[in-house]
Every structure is written in C-alpha cells, then in structure tokens.
C-alpha cells in the first residue's frame, strides 16, 4: 500500500506538523463538531467531572431545523484534551478544528469563582483562532438558598439570568465574557441537556453562516488553502497560473465539502468531494486529492453506516471468541439506504475501502502527513470492521506499522494499543496480543524517558489471552494449548515486568505459574534456572495460595506447585494395630438365607468401592494420624520442602508441619501427621508445601499422578490408651501369630511340670478412664490344654476397673508347663494333642519294647533282662536326640475402652505375646505294676528318665527322694492305693456291653494320676515341678493289679495267715497245710467259679516249670468248682502238700470262670477271667 514514491514529494520541514495523532477517530468524526469539555479548577472532583462529561457526551447527535425548514442531523464529538497544534490542520480537514468549549468548575468562594473564570478565559484565548462559542458550567456551594445573580455575558447573543434555588449569590468577574451555567452538583441539573443543545445550536448557526459565506465566494477568486507544512512550498510560486487556480478551486471545493458534511448536508458534501477529487487529480495535488477521497469515503460511510460507533475502552478485551470477529451491535448496512433517497455519487461499500486505500497511498507520499495517514488507516480499518472485512481491516492496520512517525513513546504506545484493540475487534487475537506486547515493551524501552513498568505489566497481562495463556494453572493445564516456546518467553517477560514494577508477589505468582504449567516444555537446565529464579523472587515476597487482585480488577488465581516435588504415593495409614479402634460387638452380617452368594462379588460392589475412596479403617479423635507420602524431587539440586501439612475438609483437623530435604532424583518417603479434633468424616484432599519459597496447596485432584480427588476416613471419638508390660523378659521372636496388635511379649522357658507366674501391668497413659476391660487368651492349642497352661486371674482383672488416667494396675497370669510325661505304650490319651508330644515320642514308641514283654503272665518285670536291655536301648535313643523343646505361643488379648469411644461402641486391643518354651524335664519311659506288701496297695514301678542335663531330685512319695543324674534314668516303685471297687462298681453290676475295657483303663489311669505326683527339683536351677501320670495306659494284667480284687483272699499256711512277700520255708517231706477262703466283695453273685492251686518253679531264665508231679504231691483237690458265690459270702478250701525234693517252689492260687460260661455277665466278669492271689507264694524247701 505504501507508495514507492514515499517521501519524494515531502520536504524536510521544521514547521510544527500535527504531532498529536488522535487514534480514536472514526470516519464519522469528519461530520462532527469538535467540542472540548474541560475540567478546570481543583475543587471539582474528577468523579463528578466524569459524571457530567458522560451526561454531556450522550448528546452526540442533535437534530436542528435549518432556515429552509429542513431537519439536519448534527454530529458532535466531545473531547477532554485538544492540542492546539491540531487546529492548524483545520483548513485541511475542518473537523480537526475545535469550535466549542465547555468548562466545568467548582468554587466555594468568590476568589475561587474568579480563578475558575480566569482559567476559562485563558482557555478561550488558547483556542481563540477556531473557537465559535463557549460555556462554563459552575458548581457553587450548596449551603445557601439565596437567589444568585449572574452577570450577563456580553459575548453571547442572548443574556440570561440563571437562577437555581439553592445557589449562593456569587458574581462572576466583569471580564468574564462567557455564559456561565450555575448548578448544584448534587441536584439533578435537569436543564443541563437543554443548555448543551442550545449551545450546539449556537455553534451550528455560526458554522452554517461560515459555510454559506464560503459557498457564496466565487470559486475563481478563492485563496489557496494550505496544510500546515505546505506553506513554505508555495513561496515564490506563481499563484496566478492556471495550474494553481485549479488547485485553489479544488482545495476550496473540498473544504466546502467538509463544511457541508459538518453542517449535516451529506449529499452536498459528496457532490463537493467528487468535484474536488476531479479537479485535484488533474493538477496532481496528491495530498488534497487524498483528503477529498477520504471525505468522499467518510460521507458515504455516514450514509451507509449511520450507526457506526466508537467502541468503548479496552474492557471487552478477549471477550470475543476466536473465529468470530463480528460485532453484535452491527447493523445491516442495507437497511438504512432504502429509507433515504438515493444520493448521487454515493460510493458503494467496496468503493469506500478502495477510495480509502487510494487516499492512504496519496497521504503516504508526504512524510509530514504521517499522522493524517495513520489516522486515515485507523478510520479505514474501522470501516472495514463495520463491513465485516477482517482481512481488509488487517491490511489497513498492517499499514499503520510502517508509517514512520516522530512520535513520543506515549503516542507510540497508544498506537499499539489502538492496533491491538482493533485487531481484537476483528478477532485477530494473536496479532492483538503481539501489539499489546509491543506496547508493553515501549513503556520500558530505553528511549522512553519515564519507564513505566506498571503499565508495561498490565499490558503484558492483557496480552496473555492472545497467547492462550490462562492465569489459572488448573485450567491452563487442562486446556493445554498454545505455543509453549512463546508462552514461556511471554511469561518470563511478564515476570520481569512484575518484578520491575515492584509487584514481587505477582512476580512470584507468575513464576510459580510458569513452573507449574510449562514444566514439561522446559528442558532440564531451564527447569533448574527457573526454579532458582523463583527461589530468589520468593525471597522478596513469599508466594502463597491466595488469589491476587490487581488494581484493574483482574484476579490472578493462585498457582500451586503441585509437582515440585512430585508426589508418587499418597497413602493414609491405619493406626498402629494396638491402637486401632475395633467394634466392641461384631455385628453379624445379614447374609440372607444363603451362606454364600456370588452376587456380593459382582461388578456392582467393586465399582462402588472404586468411586468412594473411603478408608476401611478408622481414625481416632485427638490421636496422631499418619499419611505416608512418597516424594521425588524433579530438580537437579537439593530441594527443601518445609511446612508440609495435610489439607483436609470435614472435621477439624490439626496437621503437624513437616520439613524434608529432598535430594535430586530420588524418591523420599515421608509421613505427615495430624490430629483430628472432632469425630466424624474427614476428607483429605491433599497437602500444602512450602518449596522454593512458595506456599502451595497441592490438591490430589490436580496432580499429574492420578489420585482420587480425596480420601475419606471416619474419625471416631477418642479412646483411652493402655500401656501393657509384663514381668517376664521379652521373647526373642514372634513367629506364627499374625496379629499385629502385639504390644509386648513375654518369653520364658519351663521344664515340663514347672509353673510360673507372670504379672501383667497396665498403665492408662491417656486422659480417659478405662471403663471396659476384657482379657482372653488365644492360642492354637486345644482350649482344655490352653486353660491348663495359662490361667488368668479374672477376678483380679475385674477389680481393676475403672482405671483412671495415669493409674497403674496389674493382674497375674499363671503359666504351667503341662506335658505328657509318659511314653506312649499304646494310643495316647485323647486329652493331649498330637502336636505337643512331637517326634520324640513317636520315635520312642517304636524303640520301646511295648506290650510284648508283659505278655507272659509269670514274668516279673524287675527280673526281665530283655526288658532292661530294650529300655536301655530306648533311652540311648532318647538321649541321643537333640534336647528338643516345644514352644507354645499364645496371646493374651486385652480389650479395653472408655470415654466417648465406648459410647460409640469401639474398643482397642492390646496383645501380649507369650512364648513359652517347654523343656522336657523327666520322662516315664516304662511302667509296670507290682503287687505290694499290702493287698490294698500295689507298686507302680516307673522307669523315669531325667531328660535335663542337671541332677534332679525326685520326690516320688511323701517321704522318698531320689537323685537322678542328668540324662540318666532310674526305676522307682511308687506305692499306690488300689483303685477301690466303688469307682468301678458300674462295670460289675451292669451287663452293658457298651462299657469297654478302655473305660476301665481310663478310670484306673485317672485314679493313678490322682494319687501319684512326682515332684522334681532341679538342684542347679532351683526349678521345681510336678510330673503327673495323666494318661497312663495299662494293660489288662496291670488293671487286675491296680483295681481292688472283687475277691477277698485269705490264705493260711499251716494255720498261720500268710502275708504277702513273706518267705516260707519247710523241709522236704513235710506236709504243709494250705487253707484259703474267698469272699465276694461285689454286690452281685459270681457264678461258676473255679478255684485252682498250682505249684511251679521259676528258673529265673524265663522258664517256668509246671511239671511238679515228681517233686510234690497234693492231698486234696487242687481244683474246686464253686457254682455260685453270693455277695459277702466266703468259700473255703483246704488241702495239703508234701514236697519231695528241696528247691524253690511257687504257689499260684487263682480263681477263674470257665470258658464258654454264662454269657450274660458284666464285662469285668467275662468268661475266662482269672483272679490271682498276688503275689504268688514262694516256698523254700530244704
């Protein structure tokens, strides 16, 4: 568009050209009367002035009926400032002339009034050359109600006395020759508009008269009109030449066009302009030709677009969405012309732009017309905007940039701002942003004598939207658009501007924003540099997560560094197991009629879990809760994050600040603690940090790692805390139990049969009394055995309650090392679980001779060699085994609660872990029963092995002690009372087959274990214990011995009562008399008894010789059949014996029921049962 002959025609001039561009002009201003509205005096407040200015400015179109009765529309333009130099171009374009002056002033006293009037007069003098008329609006003091008298202003055509009811009487000075309008600033000032219209009327008539005066001049005689810089060019030229005459005519015609346009005669003006253009074109008067074209265009635009308006300020910036540059208030251009009569030579819309383009090209040939060209470009652009030709508008605006003007920086800035504004109007937001940025840089350019960083900053801020920068980092990250490279640059510039403008808070904020939003687009060095910059910025003003409100009303939302440091993990921690609240009563889940339903595992349930990140555990009021974080430092230097706290909503939560130093590129774990101060639902939404000098609220939902937006956890009312300690040393290991509520442990080693006591001490460390306490023992043992090993004094426990804060109480737990001391001769007793008697026993059972050695009726256990040897072999095997110990693990669960927590049904559990090591003490490897001296007793012969390594003192009866060396065994006889018949009576009386031998066995073994307590004492460790024979297993032979015989024997030899174990001797050949009586001590009669007497010899080598025919002779029956023996009855038998040869003879007296006898008998009286007289009588024959 720029003419290539640019500057050719222009001369370098020192004359003042129009140096104050008016960027706000629109083409309609060509038709307007220019009125200056001036604020004078210091009394009037700017706000009041603005209020009145706005009122006046509304009167921008006035309809005036001219002398011929035609209604003309007069446009008025009000301005607040007008450089007087601009009047110089009044001949070139008449709308540049200031023709009216309205001053607004306020006074309180006469002197002030005088001063205001003086200023007004001086303004009149200033614009004297062009001014037609003026008004002064004066606001007086309000206190008085006197009717004021105003001086007549002699300058005006009609003088008038303004009267306002409440204006004090003041008089304007005599030299004040202006019509003054007195008002009270607080009143409505109803006639202000009328006064202004009247004023405009007066201006119009002056203008109209001037126009008529001009139009009546002969075109041939007119003087040449100049643009200010042209004056010199025509010096010395022949003004009378034909060329010049034409020039004069053309210029005057154009001037008339201007006047007509201003006077509301549009069609006339178009005519004038068209003529002028023709004339001027012929004389190559480019500057004026351009002006004529411009006039033509503006007049046409006025017809076509009568409603085109100056758009208001910059407030609507960026409100137009991209791609829709069209304004809402735009009127269809076609509607107006239809109502008007067609005007000759009216340009159509396309031609307007074309003519404007030409005009601009012509202007561009003159350097001094730069401002005119600039203004024309803007005007043309505005028309193009009106026409909806964005590209055309853009090209006009583009042209502005090329115009080289010697402008002040302020004006350059204005130019860019106007450009930006217009670019925004056509929807070129990026271009607008670019211009704003240029404007911003101008404010602080080195050429600018007064750099203004504040303005620079605010313009920079406005330019952000054009670069798709949204100040809210959250939105910004979501939108993720724009050109990152440029955005980074712009943000950096913005930060510098903010810093220089001393908005350190904003600088910090923007830097935070830059780091937060542009992180991924920065390389590592940039990241580091920016982070360091932020650190230094935040030294001046710490960043905090509050919105900053600028003076302009723009709100800068908080920027949070959610990713410095990066949070990799965010896990709410349950309380420590022993502090975890549990429900006191476990509600039974209503499972419906089905024990198992797969519906519960359906997708519905699982989805619900996902949607609601509610924790399954509970937190307790006033108790430290923990959230563990995994943080990583993305920067390449060490990062110190201080004051980390949890962000919560819901119940009141107090978070403890945490400080952590993060080494670069390493994941650091950290836990944040806090206390809920209320019960209810707590939501944890994130955490706050203080890193790089910036406080940030890092919300989970805005973090790059996708966390749920918040974590919810229920907080229950506070519960007491109990500290538990034991009197025993801590156990070394907690193995099998996966209950984590273990607070302490107790380990001890006990020998089998030993017992110990453990004192559990409870201390209430909280300030809530404990009102509930439950103690239970848990283990994998069978309940019976468990109760045997652990005995809790529950009575003592119940006495503890309530346990007040800071109080201590204790209770005892008795621990007994219960064990099976017996070698399993046969099936082990059902009361001892298999796991207690571990491998050792089973291996023993195989190596021991078992029942086999007892199968022979006559064999004596004591004399059995094979038994001995096999026992010895078994023992070796026993001792050779590593000293194996069994460990019993158990938990002592203490459930307690109190205070508000108890009300809500929660309690806590502390567990004491017991690890009791059970070491074998002694072991009964074998046993047998022997007849005792007394018939009411028998000897229980026990092989006792000391499995310890120490010497053991064994007290097996009340008076008898024995020492057993470590790892050795010995045999002890224990006299035991026989099992009385009363215990067994059932078995004799009832013929019930269901009672088996095993039951008898059980009763007998219980009888033995009741009576036999083997007390042992380890001398070295001074530990002592009791071994019981519980579960001892007896075979039938033994059982006979153990229980009292139902038959009472009385044997007399040679008339003397025979006592057991008594040795008898006689000589061979002597006759010995045997006399015996059997009494039935049962309640029932015994049938079919056979009493037999038999002699035998025991060779002590396992051989028993029953063939005694050659050695003795019996006179009398050796057998006697008793058909029935009634209860309490006795049967007698008598016989004699003669020994033929000396030797040791034994006499066996027995009583048996015959085989295949009566079937319907009780089990113990079953067929083939034999009762013997024990012990056998031995007779030494010499």
């Amino acid at each position: 568009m720029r003419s290539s002959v640019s500057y050719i025609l222009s001369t370098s001039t020192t004359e003042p050209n129009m140096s104050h561009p008016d960027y706000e002009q629109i083409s309609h201003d060509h038709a307007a009367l220019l009125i200056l509205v001036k604020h004078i005096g210091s009394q009037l407040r700017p706000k009041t002035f603005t209020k009145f200015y706005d009122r006046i400015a509304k009167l921008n179109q006035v309809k005036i009926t001219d002398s011929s009765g035609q209604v003309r529309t007069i446009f008025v333009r009000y301005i607040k400032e007008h450089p007087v130099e601009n009047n110089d171009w009044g001949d070139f374009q008449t709308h540049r002339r200031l023709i009216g002056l309205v001053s607004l002033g306020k006074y309180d006293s006469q002197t002030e009034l005088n001063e205001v009037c003086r200023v007004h007069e001086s303004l009149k003098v200033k614009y004297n050359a062009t001014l037609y008329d003026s008004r002064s609006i004066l606001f007086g003091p309000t206190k008085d109600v006197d009717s004021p008298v105003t001086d007549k202003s002699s300058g005006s055509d009609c003088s008038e006395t303004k009267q306002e009811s409440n204006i004090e009487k003041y008089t304007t000075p005599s030299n004040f020759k202006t019509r003054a309008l007195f008002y009270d600033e607080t009143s409505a000032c109803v006639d202000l508009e009328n006064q202004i219209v009247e004023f405009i009327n007066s201006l119009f008539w002056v203008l109209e008269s001037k126009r008529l005066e001009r139009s009546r001049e002969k075109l041939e005689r007119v003087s040449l009109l100049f643009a200010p810089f042209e004056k010199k060019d025509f010096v010395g030229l022949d003004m009378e030449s034909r060329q010049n005459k034409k020039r004069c005519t053309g210029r005057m015609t154009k001037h008339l066009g201007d006047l007509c346009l201003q006077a509301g005669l549009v069609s006339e003006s178009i005519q004038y302009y068209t003529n002028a253009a023709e004339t001027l074109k012929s004389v190559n008067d480019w500057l004026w030709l351009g002006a004529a074209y411009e006039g033509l265009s503006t007049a046409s635009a006025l017809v076509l677009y009568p409603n085109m308006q100056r758009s208001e300020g910059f407030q609507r910036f960026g409100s137009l969405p991209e791609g829709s540059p069209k304004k809402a208030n735009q009127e269809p251009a076609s509607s107006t012309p239809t109502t008007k009569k067609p005007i000759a030579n009216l340009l159509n819309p396309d031609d307007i732009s074309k003519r404007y383009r030409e005009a601009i090209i012509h202007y561009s040939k003159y350097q001094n017309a730069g401002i005119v060209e600039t203004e024309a470009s803007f005007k043309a652009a505005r028309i193009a905007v009106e026409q909806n030709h964005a590209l055309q508008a853009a090209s006009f605006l583009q042209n502005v940039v090329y115009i080289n003007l010697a402008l002040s920086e302020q004006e350059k800035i204005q130019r860019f701002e106007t450009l930006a504004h217009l670019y925004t109007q056509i929807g070129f937001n990026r271009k607008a942003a670019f211009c704003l940025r240029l404007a911003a840089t101008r404010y602080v350019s080195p050429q600018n004598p007064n750099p203004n960083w504040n303005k620079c900053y605010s313009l920079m801020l406005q330019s952000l939207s054009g670069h798709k920068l949204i100040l809210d980092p959250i939105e910004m990250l979501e939108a993720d658009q724009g050109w990152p490279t440029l955005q980074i640059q712009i943000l950096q510039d913005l930060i510098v501007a903010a810093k220089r403008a001393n908005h350190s808070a904003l600088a910090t904020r923007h830097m935070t924003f830059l780091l937060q939003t542009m992180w991924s687009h920065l390389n590592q060095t940039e990241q580091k540099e920016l982070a360091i910059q932020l650190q230094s910025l935040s030294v001046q003003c710490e960043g905090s997560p509050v919105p900053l409100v600028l003076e302009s009303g723009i709100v800068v939302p908080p920027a949070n560094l959610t990713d410095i440091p990066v949070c990799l993990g965010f896990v709410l921690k349950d309380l420590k197991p022993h502090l975890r609240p549990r429900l006191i009563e476990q509600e039974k889940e209503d499972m419906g009629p089905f024990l198992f339903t797969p519906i519960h595992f359906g997708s519905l349930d699982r989805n619900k879990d996902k949607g609601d990140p509610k924790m399954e555990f509970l937190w307790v009021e006033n108790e430290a809760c923990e959230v563990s974080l995994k943080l990583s430092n993305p920067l390449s230097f060490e990062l110190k994050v201080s004051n980390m706290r949890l962000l919560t909503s819901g119940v009141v939560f107090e978070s403890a600040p945490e400080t952590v130093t993060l080494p670069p590129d390493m994941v650091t774990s950290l836990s944040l603690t806090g206390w809920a101060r209320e019960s209810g639902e707590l939501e944890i939404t994130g955490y706050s940090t203080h890193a790089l000098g910036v406080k940030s609220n890092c919300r989970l939902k805005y973090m790059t790692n996708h966390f749920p937006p918040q974590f919810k956890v229920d907080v229950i009312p506070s519960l007491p805390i109990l500290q538990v300690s034991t009197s025993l040393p801590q156990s070394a290991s907690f193995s099998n139990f996966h209950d984590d509520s273990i607070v302490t442990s107790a380990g001890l080693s006990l020998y089998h049969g030993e017992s110990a006591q453990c004192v559990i001490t409870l201390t209430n460390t909280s300030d809530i009394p404990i009102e509930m306490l439950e103690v239970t023992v848990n283990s994998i043992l069978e309940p019976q055995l468990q109760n045997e090993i652990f005995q809790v004094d529950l009575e003592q426990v119940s006495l503890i309650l309530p346990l007040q804060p800071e109080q201590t109480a204790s209770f005892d737990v008795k621990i007994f090392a219960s064990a099976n001391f017996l070698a399993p001769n046969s099936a082990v007793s059902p009361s001892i679980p298999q796991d207690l008697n571990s491998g050792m026993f089973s291996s023993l059972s195989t190596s021991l001779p078992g029942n086999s050695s007892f199968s022979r009726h006559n064999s004596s256990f004591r004399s059995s060699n094979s038994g001995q040897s096999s026992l010895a072999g078994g023992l070796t095997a026993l001792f050779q085994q590593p000293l194996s110990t069994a460990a019993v693990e158990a938990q002592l669960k203490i459930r307690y609660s109190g205070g508000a927590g108890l009300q809500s049904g929660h309690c806590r559990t502390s567990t004491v872990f017991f690890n009791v090591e059970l070491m074998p003490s002694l072991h009964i490897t074998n046993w047998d029963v022997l007849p005792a001296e007394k018939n009411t007793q028998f000897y229980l012969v026990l092989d006792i092995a000391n499995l310890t390594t120490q010497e053991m003192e064994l007290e097996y009866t009340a008076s008898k002690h024995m020492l057993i060396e470590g790892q050795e065994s010995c045999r002890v006889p224990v006299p035991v009372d026989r099992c009385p018949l009363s215990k067994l009576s059932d078995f004799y009386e009832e013929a019930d087959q269901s009672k088996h031998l095993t039951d008898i066995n059980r009763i007998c073994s219980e009888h033995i274990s009741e009576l036999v307590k083997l007390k042992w004492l380890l001398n070295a460790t001074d530990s002592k214990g009791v071994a019981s024979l519980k579960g001892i297993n007896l075979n039938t032979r033994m059982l006979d011995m153990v229980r009292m015989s139902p038959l009472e024997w009385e044997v007399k030899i040679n008339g003397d009562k025979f006592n057991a174990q008594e040795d008898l001797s006689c000589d061979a050949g002597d006759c010995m008399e045997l006399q015996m009586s059997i009494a039935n001590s049962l309640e029932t009669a015994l049938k079919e008894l056979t009493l037999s007497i038999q002699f035998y010899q025991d060779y002590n080598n396992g051989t028993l010789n029953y063939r005694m025919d050659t050695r003795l002779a019996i006179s009398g029956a050796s057998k006697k059949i008793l058909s029935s023996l009634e209860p309490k009855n006795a049967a007698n038998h008598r016989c004699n014996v003669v020994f033929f040869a000396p030797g040791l003879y034994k006499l066996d007296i027995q009583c048996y029921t015959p085989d295949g006898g009566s079937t319907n008998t009780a089990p113990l009286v079953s067929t083939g049962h034999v009762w013997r007289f024990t012990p056998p009588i031995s007779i030494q024959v010499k």
Partner: protein
Amino acid sequence: MAVCAAIVGKDNSPKFFCCINPDEELTFQYKVLSSLDIIEEKLNPASKSASEMRELYLGQLYSLETCKIYGYVTNTKIKFIIVVDSTNMALRDNEIRSMFRKIHSEYADMVSNPFYIPGEPITSKSFDSSIKNIITGTV
C-alpha cells in the same frame, strides 16, 4: 529460498517448527503465530465459496519488512506455513506452491508412520532434515 517452515495442528498448536537460523526461532514463532489469525479468517466458512475451499494453498498471508509469510491448509486443517525472506524476489508463487506440496507429501508420509501418535509434536529427525531440504531448495 524459505527461511522457516512450520506445521500447525488443527487446534493451532505447533506440531513442528524449523528454522534455517536457529537464533531467530523465537521471532519467527511470533510471526507464524500472528499469521494464524489470517489463516483462520481465510478459513472462516462464512467468507468462502465452495470452490475456494477446495484450494489448499492460501497464498501470501502477509508481508513484513523482512519477510513474507505463506500459508497452506490441508483438508484436515493442518496448517503449513512458510516464511520467505522478502529480499528474495526471485521466488515465484509457483515455487512456493510446489514447496508446500512437497511438505504436504512429506507430512503424509510422516503421519503414516505407525510410531507417530497423531496430534503429538513431530520430533522425527529425518522429517526435520527433509523439510529443511525442501525449504532450502536442495531437493
């Protein structure tokens, strides 16, 4: 030949930017960004007739003192922008057009790469070098 070429996605985010002189990249980015306004205006369907829509080449977007900017838009609204030094008077419109066509086919090849995620910035080195070759006219 040309001094700069850019590929801009349909959401107006930069996909590729290459500059003969890397120091000037920022200023060129500003220029290219501003030219997007004009491209958008030109693509505005209200101001277009059907026949014009078929033409991918947009012509000169605007000229500055130092350079001229040309635009080209694919049917999927991917914008190619070439910046030419305004002192280079020898370059004719046809050459610009052919340059755009070459870039377009190069881009089509590039998008066909299964390892390229559409919409992501283009980082391929071979693409970069071939675009550089096209704009410097060495192809």
